[in-house]
Each structure stands twice: as C-alpha cells, then as structure tokens.
C-alpha cells in the first residue's frame, strides 16, 4: 500500500492535480467552517457583552438620579454594529478571503469593546490573544495581519489621544505601544509557524488522499476491466445466437467503462458492408438505410477499411444519423473505433462513444474486447457451419440407417432364399441321386440284356436284329454315361463327393492311360505322343479322379481330332507357391473359338449344338473334370484356336489335402 502511495506521489500527473484540488477544497472547507464558528462566536460575544454591561454597569449615577449607562448602549449598538457585518459575510460569503479578514478586524474590535466594558480588567486583555489563536483556525497566517493592525491602531490612537488610558501616564514614550504590539506579534509569529505547519499537514493529507483516490480509481478501473472481460467472455461462450451475444457485449461495455454508447457491427458475407448487430446506451435512431454501411463510408466504414483502431473527438465523427449533433447534446466527447480482425480478416467493427476521455486502461480493455468479440463471431460462424454439417450428417446417417435396414431385410431375404435354394439343391441332389440310382438299375439290366440278346442274335441266323440290339445297347450306355455324369455332378455340388487320397506313381498312371486309349487313338488315325519329365515321381492324390480327368481330356482330344496328333506332356510345376504336377493334353483337332472356350466347363455345354450331334457326348465331362480339379486344390485351363486344335492344362498339387468338407466353388476355371 505504502509503495503504491509513494508511486502515486512520484507520478504527480492526475494525482498531483487532484491533490491541489483537494488541498483547495480542504482550505475552503476550513475557511467556511471557521467563518461559521466566528459567526457564532461573535453573536455569543455580543450577547455576553450586553449581559455583562447590564450586570456590571447598568446605570450611570448623578447624585441620587441615574440613567442607563453608556456601556449598555455601547454593548447593544456598538457590539451589534461590530458583529453584524462579519456575521452576514460569514453567512452569505463564507470562505471568501475578504470575509475572514473582516472577521479578523471585527473580532479584535469586539475585544476592544469588551475590554472597555469590563473596565480594562487585565484578564479581558487575554481576549486579544485568544482571538488570535481562534483566527489561527483559518490556517491562513495572513488574517493575523489585520487583527494585529487593529490592536496596534487601538493602542496607537488611544496613546495619541488618551495616553493615560493606555499607558497610565499622560505623556508616554513611543516604544510603549510598540512593546504592547510586540507581544501580539510574538504570538503572531508562533501562530504563523503553527499555520504553516498545519498547511503542510493539510497538503500532505491532500496528497495522500489524492494518491489513495488514484489507487482506488486504478483498482476500480482494473476491476471494471476484469468484470468487462468476464462479462464479455461469458456472453461469447454461453451465447448461442449472435445478435444476443453481441448485445450483451455492448451492454457490458457501456456499464463497465461508463460509456455513453456502444455499437457492434459485423461484416456481411461478401465483406463489402457492415451490418449493425447490437447497440447499447444512448442510442439515437439510425436512418433506416444506415443500419447497413458500406466499407469506407462514414467513420465506421473507414475504421473497417483502414483496419486500424481510431480514437478521436466525438464531434469529429461522421455518423449515419439524421441529426449529427446528437452526441454533443448527449454530452459525449470521445469516440473509439476498433476493427474486429481475425487473422487479418475483417469480421466487424466495435465503436464506442463516452462522456469523458478514454483512460488507457479502458482503451486496452476495448482492444481486448474487440479481439474476444472477433473470436466470438468466428466461433458462432463455425458453430453454425458445424450445425449445418451435423444436420447433413444426421440426414446421411438416417439414409444409411434406412439403407442398412433395407440391406438387412434383403440379407434376411437372401438368406432365406439361400436356405430355400440350398434346401432345393439338397432336394435336387437327393432326387438326382435317388433317381440316378433308380434309373441305373433298370438301365444296367437293359444294357446287359441287350448284350445277351445281341450275342444270341449273332449266333442265330437272324442277323437283321443285331443292328437294332446294338442301337439299344449304345443308347443305353449313353444314357448310363449321362446318368453317371449327372450323379457325379450332383454329388460334387451337394458336397458329398469325397476324395480317396493315395500315393501313386505318375509315370505309371500315364502309361496305363495310354494303353487304355491306344485303340481309340488308332481308330481315328491319330498319333499320340507322351512326354513325361524325368523327375515326376509320385503324387498324393485321388488316383481314380486323376485318371478320370486325364481320360476325359484324352477322350475329347481323340474324339475331336481326325488323322492328327495328340500330345500328352507331364512335368513338375507350381500352382501358386505349391509344388504341382502339370498335365497338358494338346491336339490338332477342330479347336474352339474364344466364346466357346469360355463356357466349355459349364454343365451341358459343348462348343455348339452341332457338336453333340456330330461327335456325341453328354456335355458333362469337362464340367466334372473342372470340379474334380477344384476338389483336389488344382485348376484347369484351356487354350484353343478354331481348326488348329486345343490345349487343356491341368495343375494338381503333388500333395493333395482332403478338403471335401469345404464348399466347392462351382464355375469355370
């Protein structure tokens, strides 16, 4: 605290002026107070003089007759005359220098009267010294001068005219009145010293009070700034609607900074105009067209254009109002405008009028508020965008949810359909299996009996029926082949086809196959060439299915090749990263187009409809081959050109893993 006071005293700017003002006020108060004190004292002395005169010397005697003593009249009229003028001055011109000088003269004159009324008692002379002490209450040593002069004149004049009444002798020397006056002057000196000390103390008190006031004012301003910052922060963080937020900010500015008017403008979306958003205080009605101000127009627009704070006299502000002199009428003297900037982007302008000059702390506070309001506006814009995005997102979420629900419904329906399809497939497979079984039994009987009948017919001399029986047998075998194919295919699709894995020598299997198809090869005039790599070794797979795969491929090659060449290449290779055996069956037959190649592995598909009629077959062979390859973890591919032949390549793992429990993908390789 003391350090603050010392600091304030050292920087005697406003505090120094305030100290002088307070000192003057203290002096004036002291003078007025003492004036009133003397007004009462003089009235009291007047009354006391009258009472004393009436008591001590009411009558003057002439033998046995008497009259009112002159002292009584002197006490009444002369005492009244002495009092009336200074008392009136004290009542109506208290504090004036002339009043206290008059009072000083009157007080000493009253003393002279009282001394005479009391018969010159030595005790009454103390009235002079008491009066001087009373006059010292003014803390103005100059009032002692007229008082002392009156005492000196009293002695001087009476010494001149009635020396005996003063000095007791008829002819007094000049130094006697000086001696009397010297005692008075002696007291004057003491009182002057006292007055000067009292004045110094009064000055010190004024300076301390001014410093304290300054400190209080500074703290008050700091509290106002803090309160303003808090209020603005609260408004900007808790508010949801921009106009309401800015209105609270404007009201806080007016209240906390003792402002006359505060307005907040925001830049429009295009950034070429300001729009009034909030105003508080002595708001005059803006012209209707001026709630929107172009950037660069009026003082507000110039602040926005310059993007620099402006501090100027209120009278110099160019305003968008019908009556430009309103600020003067409202007693507003100062104007401050702050651009609301966010990373050098203008978002608005803060403007404030005040009935006093802005204190530096107020300007700092406004600058801080301007920054905060800019952030608040930006936050509100961001929240508005966020709200829009949120709404869009929620709409998208709703759509997605609806789609999800539809998808779930579709999935359920699909599952149901799948289950139905699986049930149908199982039913179909069961049906096919049972039907094939039921068909094969009589069909085998038909084929067997037709063979028997053919043998008997060949032995009998009726060879004409042999051809018919051969047709019956051929049709039966075809039908049996077809049924077996359907049965195998349905087993595969039903997941009931099992593998019978075993290790076998590849080369031996190939030679066995060649022996099997040898007659057929020669029957069509074809030449079969087999190339087996030396490192073939054995493989672990389903021997029967492997043989069936290769047998089907060789049968097809033989069937579609006339007087051509058929080649079987067997070698080790890779199926992905897995060691495998690669079987390639190449012919120089009719070949296929690309479209025909694409559907050659589909069930009941052949190169064209004429193929079946021309070459026979069920259309299930390659479909079964393809599924067997997949069943053993291998693959099959074809490369064919019309009239140039075909090349079927099968890759089977050397070590086939039994995966019959896993579902088999049905499709082309």
């Amino acid at each position, binding site marked *: 605290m003391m350090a603050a006071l010392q600091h304030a005293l050292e920087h005697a700017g406003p505090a120094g002026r305030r100290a002088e003002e307070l000192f003057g006020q203290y002096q004036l108060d002291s003078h007025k107070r003492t004036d009133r004190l003397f007004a009462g004292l003089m009235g009291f002395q007047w009354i006391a003089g009258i009472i004393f005169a009436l008591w*001590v*010397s*009411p*009558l*003057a*005697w*002439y*033998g*046995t*007759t*008497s009259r009112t*003593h*002159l*002292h009584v009249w*002197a006490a009444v*009229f*002369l005492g009244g*005359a*002495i009092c*009336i*003028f200074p008392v009136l001055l004290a009542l109506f011109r208290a504090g004036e220098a*002339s009043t206290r000088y*008059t009072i000083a*003269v*009157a007080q000493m*004159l009253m003393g*002279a*009267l009282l001394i*005479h009324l009391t*018969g*010159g*008692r*030595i005790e009454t002379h103390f009235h002079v010294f008491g009066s001087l002490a009373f006059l010292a209450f003014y803390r103005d040593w100059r009032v002692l001068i007229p008082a002392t002069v009156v005492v000196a004149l009293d002695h001087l004049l*009476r010494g001149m*005219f*009635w020396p*005996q*009444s*003063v*000095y*007791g*002798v*008829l002819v007094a020397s000049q130094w006697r009145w000086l001696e009397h006056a010297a005692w008075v002057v002696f007291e004057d000196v003491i009182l002057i010293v006292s007055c000067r000390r009292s004045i110094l103390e009064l000055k010190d008190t004024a300076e301390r009070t001014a410093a304290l006031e300054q400190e209080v004012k500074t703290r008050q301003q700091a509290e106002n700034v803090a309160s303003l910052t808090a209020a603005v922060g609260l408004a900007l963080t808790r508010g949801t609607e921009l106009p309401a937020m800015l209105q609270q900010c404007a009201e806080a500015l007016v209240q906390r900074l003792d402002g006359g008017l505060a307005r907040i403008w925001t830049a429009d979306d295009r950034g070429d105009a300001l729009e009034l958003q909030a105003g508080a205080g002595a708001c005059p009605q803006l012209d209707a067209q001026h709630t929107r101000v172009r950037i660069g127009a009026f003082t507000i627009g110039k602040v926005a254009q310059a993007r620099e704070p402006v501090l100027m006299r209120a009278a110099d502000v160019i305003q968008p109002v019908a009556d430009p002199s309103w600020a003067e009428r409202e007693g507003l003297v100062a104007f401050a405008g702050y651009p609301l900037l966010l990373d050098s982007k203008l978002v608005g302008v803060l403007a404030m009028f005040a009935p006093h000059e802005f204190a530096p702390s107020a300007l700092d506070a406004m600058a801080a508020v301007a920054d905060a309001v800019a952030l608040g506006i930006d936050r509100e814009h961001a929240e508005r965008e966020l709200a829009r995005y949120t709404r869009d997102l929620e709409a998208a979420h709703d759509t997605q949810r609806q789609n999800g629900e539809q998808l779930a419904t579709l999935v359920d329906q699909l599952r149901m359909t799948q289950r139905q399809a699986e049930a149908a497939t199982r039913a179909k497979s069961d049906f096919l299996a049972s039907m094939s079984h039921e068909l094969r039994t009589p069909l085998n009987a038909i084929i067997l009996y037709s063979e028997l009948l053919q043998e008997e017919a060949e032995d009998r001399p009726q060879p004409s029926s042999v051809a018919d029986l051969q047709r019956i047998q051929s049709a039966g075998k075809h039908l049996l082949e077809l049924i077996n194919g359907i049965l195998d295919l349905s087993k595969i699709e039903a997941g009931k086809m099992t593998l019978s894995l075993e290790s076998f020598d590849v080369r031996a299997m190939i030679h066995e196959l060649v022996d099997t198809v040898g007659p057929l090869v020669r029957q069509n005039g074809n030449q079969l060439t087999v190339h087996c790599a030396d490192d073939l070794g054995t493989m672990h797979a389903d021997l029967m299915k492997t043989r069936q795969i290769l047998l089907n491929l060789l049968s097809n090659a033989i069937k579609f090749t006339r007087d051509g060449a058929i080649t079987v290449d067997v070698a080790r290779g890779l199926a992905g990263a897995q060691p495998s055996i690669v079987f390639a069956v190449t012919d120089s037959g009719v070949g296929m187009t690309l479209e025909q190649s694409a559907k050659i592995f589909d069930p009941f598909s052949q190169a064209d409809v004429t193929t079946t009629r021309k070459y026979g077959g069920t259309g299930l062979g390659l479909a079964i081959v393809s599924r067997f390859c997949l069943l053993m973890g291998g693959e099959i591919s074809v490369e064919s050109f019309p009239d140039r032949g075909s090349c079927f390549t099968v890759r089977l793992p050397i070590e086939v893993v039994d995966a019959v429990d896993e579902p088999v993908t049905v499709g082309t390789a």
Partner: protein
Amino acid sequence: MGSETIGPPLERPSRGKRLLWFSMLAAVWLSVVFSGLWVVWAYENRPGTEANPPQAWPPHSSLVPASDRPTLVFLAHPQCTCTRASIGELAEVLARTPNHPKTYVLFLRPSVVDADWEKTGLWRSAMALPDVTVLRDHDGVEARRFGVETSGQTLLYDAGGRLIFSGGITGSRGHAGDNAGEAALVALLTSGQADRRATSVFGCPLFATGN
C-alpha cells in the same frame, strides 16, 4: 415543480464591482464602529468635575485626622460602577505602601434614598480593605467640606494636616490599571515625594446639581 426565468439571465457582478461594493460597505461599517468606539473612548476619558479641597484639614470635619501619619480621604458614590476601578486602585495603593495612612472611605448617603442604599458591592469591597474606616456621608456633608464633586476623588493630607494630593487614581473612567494618580499617591506615601500632586478624577458626579 419547475421554475422559469423570464427575461435575460442575471449576471454575477464582476470582481471589480464586488470589490467596490465590499470596500464601500466595509468603509461604512468601520466608520460606524470607530465612531462608536470614539464615543466610548471619549466618555471614558472625560474627567469629572475637579475638586476644590481645602489646603488644610477642614476644622469642621467630623473626621479625625492622624497626627503621626498621613490621612487619606476617599469619597465615593456607592452606586457608581466606575468607582469599582478606583476602589481596586486604592487597594493597590495600600498594598504597595508598608505604612498605611489613616484611611477614610466615605460613601454618599442621601437622606431621600431607601435604607441600605449605600450597602453595595463597593461598600463591601471597601470594608474588606485593611486599616480602612468606611463611613456614610449623610447628604454629602463631608464631601462638601472637602470640596469634592466626583466619585473616586482621593485626598491625602500629611501628618500636619496639609493637603499633599488631590485627584483620581484611575487612568480613565472605570478603567483599572497603572495610572498617574495611583503612582503619585504611592510615591508620596513611601517617599514623601511625587512628580505630581493633582490628577483628573473619573467617576459619577456626587451631586446631581453639579451636572
């Protein structure tokens, strides 16, 4: 309730005019006061009728003078407030002289006044003085024998009955304090010498006819 001023606003007098007015009023005031004081001072300093005492002790006086020391005769009006200061100065004289004179204080006692008219504070004050004989002066007989007209008149006769001082012993009317009469009286009583043997007397007239 508002007030409305019609006409131009009143202008506060200029500082010069106010000073002039103040000076004039102050001058009037001081004139009145000093005039009054002057009257008071003049009244207080106007001496009473001078006495015409016999140079030798009057032979028809009922008072008996002392033969071995001076005899002081003080004549007073018992109602005169101015004489209070004279009684005080007499006490001062007696206090300052080791050998008291034979002292008579005679208070006027007209025959037309009420009883105990003369028993005032002055009487009691005089009675309190040492070696003082306080007596009534019926109808001012002794005052006339000593040729005295004014209250406070003091006469001093030596042991031989010769008048050696006549006058007042206050500086002005009713004004206490050092004065020429008192100083002369003390000098005569202590050393037998004084620079003056007569002073003015300030007090009420003992006889109405005298005014």
